[in-house]
């Protein structure tokens, strides 16, 4: 069914393409890429759609219709995982935009050792996520961790960052922001540097305050950078798995589970059909959020 639809849509796509790239290369030239695309991307996509409708043991698959999807939404911790995913995506993406922008303003100013500082902000991006997770897990230990020992030395009793169900998800989100804000900063630096200085000079002559210059010159003109940062970090937040798994494994209990960690646990338990259904849900959710968001952000850009 799905395959037939795909085949049907090919001629249309081909006709549209040909007008632009007709005669650029002979058709055999596209064959290797087409084979790789079909075998490694299209086939698994359709296979996963099929297996999400089955109870699958890797050796045999019983067709059960939409039962896996019903199961996925029926279980309280699976649903909690959905909510947590959204919280995680919004918190990490929001903080990366705000902090990335502030850091970029600082690092495009005439600050001493600017190149070095820019590198320092970017370093956490280069470090292995699992390594960061293990390090912060040790630092956030409720009694022996560096953070709570430091707080204790000034008389504050720190919370169980990763073990208190109220804080666990946010603690991981903060670490995610620390690790990822470097990328947002670099994108913003590129955006800010490309704003012509004449605008600022003109604004200054008109008597605009620093605050007004930021709101009316910098912010609108780095809109493309903002769109990139929001979309990249939001997709990253929605499908985030490695950091959460390294730090809490979704715990304590199910309180910091996100969709990706729930899916992985179903897979570990041998519920292969259910975990495939979870992946389809994740795919649909990311698409439903990101496509309109991306259209909205890009339209703003064109309108201006």
């Amino acid at each position, binding site marked *: 069914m799905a395959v037939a639809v795909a085949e049907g849509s090919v001629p249309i796509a081909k006709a549209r393409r040909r007008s632009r790239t007709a005669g650029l290369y002979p058709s055999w030239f596209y064959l290797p890429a087409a084979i790789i695309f079909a075998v490694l991307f299209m086939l698994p996509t359709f296979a996963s759609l099929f297996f999400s409708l089955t109870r699958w043991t890797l050796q045999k698959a019983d067709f059960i219709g939409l039962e896996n999807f019903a199961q996925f939404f029926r279980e309280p*911790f699976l649903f909690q995982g959905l909510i947590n995913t959204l919280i995680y995506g919004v918190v990490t993406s929001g903080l990366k935009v705000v902090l990335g922008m502030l850091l970029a303003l600082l690092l495009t100013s005439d600050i001493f050792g600017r190149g070095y500082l820019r590198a320092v902000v970017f370093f956490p991006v280069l470090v292995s996520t699992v390594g960061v997770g293990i390090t912060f897990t040790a630092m956030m230990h409720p009694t022996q961790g560096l953070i709570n020992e430091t707080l204790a030395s000034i008389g504050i009793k720190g919370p169980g960052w990763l*073990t208190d169900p109220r804080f666990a998800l946010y603690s991981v989100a903060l670490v995610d922001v620390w690790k990822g804000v470097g990328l947002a900063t670099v994108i913003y630096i590129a955006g800010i540097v490309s704003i012509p200085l004449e605008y600022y000079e003109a604004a200054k002559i008109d008597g605009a305050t620093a605050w007004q210059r930021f709101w009316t010159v910098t912010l609108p003109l780095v809109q493309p950078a903002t769109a990139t940062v929001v979309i990249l970090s939001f997709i990253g937040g929605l499908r985030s798995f490695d950091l959460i798994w390294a730090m809490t494994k979704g715990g304590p209990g199910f309180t910091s589970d996100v969709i990706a960690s729930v899916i992985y646990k179903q*897979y570990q338990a041998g519920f292969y059909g259910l975990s495939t259904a979870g992946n389809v849900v994740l795919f649909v959710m990311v698409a439903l959020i990101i496509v309109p968001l991306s259209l909205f952000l890009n339209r703003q850009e064109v309108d201006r």
Partner: protein
Amino acid sequence: MLMRNLTRAALATTGIVVILAGAASAQDKVKLTFLFDNAPSTVAMAEALATAFEAKNPNIEIETESRPGGADGDNLIKTRLATSEMSDVFLYNSGSLFQAINPTQNLVDLSAEPFQANVIDSFKTVVTGTDGKVYGAPIGTAMGGGIFYNIPIYKELGLTPPKSWAEFMANNEKIKAAGKTAVIQTFGATWTSQLFVLGDFYNVLAADPNFATDYTAGKAKYASTPAALKGFERQEEVFKAGLLNEDFAAATFEDGVTKVATGEGAHYPMLSFAVANIKELAPENINDVGFFAIPGDDAAKNGLTTWMPAGLYIPKTTKHEAEAKQFIAFVASVEGCDIQTQSAGATGPYLVKGCTLPADVPPAVADLLPYFQEGGHSAPALEFLSPIKGPALEQITVEVGSGIRDAASGAALYDEDVKKQAQQLGLPGW
């Protein structure tokens, strides 16, 4: 004439065979691969068994490989079986986890092997597939799910090991009043959170002897069976009474073992195999730790929930079935037991006839053995009586044990989890 020629031919042939055999042993050593979990005590035991076997069988070389335990290990075993990449011999749980790897389709039938005559029947039942064939052999010793206690704290406060839950909680109050940690929990390793529920099963069976059968058939539920719900309720009670160590949510299994051995806490609910870890992590305190069964309501009906040891299995995809069987027979022999005792210590009774334990076992093991002996009171854990064990129990018991979720809703959630597993296994009635 004919005779002589025949004899000559026979001699010549024998000679050739001998030469060929010699060449084979020199060049084509059979290489067996052997996969086991990475718990230090398992690794020590498995390596010692492999070395001893190689010494006896110079034509076989064993390549050992360790894997993670817990859910990661389950995943790895299932994936390697499904992709035909399983080692020639592998170690894995018996009971419900064994049922979940689809033994009838994946494993070599070991029912007719001569060594099975020496394997105790109670083990055979937990490695028998749905077709009635036996697929495994025991490695390691039987275990109990109970509570380790610190003997010096008990002596100092004049306490005796409890036989009923009320006595246990009374002991806890005295320990807490003395300013000590009464109960150690280690939710940093989530699997350790399940003992109050799983280890209470002797008491469940005592109250409801048909629970296992009804549960497998989908008729008995944790949430609606008062005796079964009790495990969750007790876990909640212990948390609410404020008896836990301060870092219970982050502490690991190794922390728990060390704490109960060194007296940083008085009780640690755990499987008795942890004796091997105490020996390794706090060797000077090995004589400070005792063991008792998780007590139920009635002191007169006190008994232990027991765990069968892991099994050794051969996948159907092996190319060295004969050698693999030879190795398994060696492990499941009296000689094999003795090597296990030497390398990992005496942690409980073996499931092979004729195997003995040394006279000077640690006190926790000495406390454990009477439950298994003639006239002792013990019953297997649910995972050995039913193929269904829900995979999310450890997260649920973490929530109940840290006050995030109450006992009743935890039990109801677990019933849902069990249903998922039963459907995945394709059991009737779900």
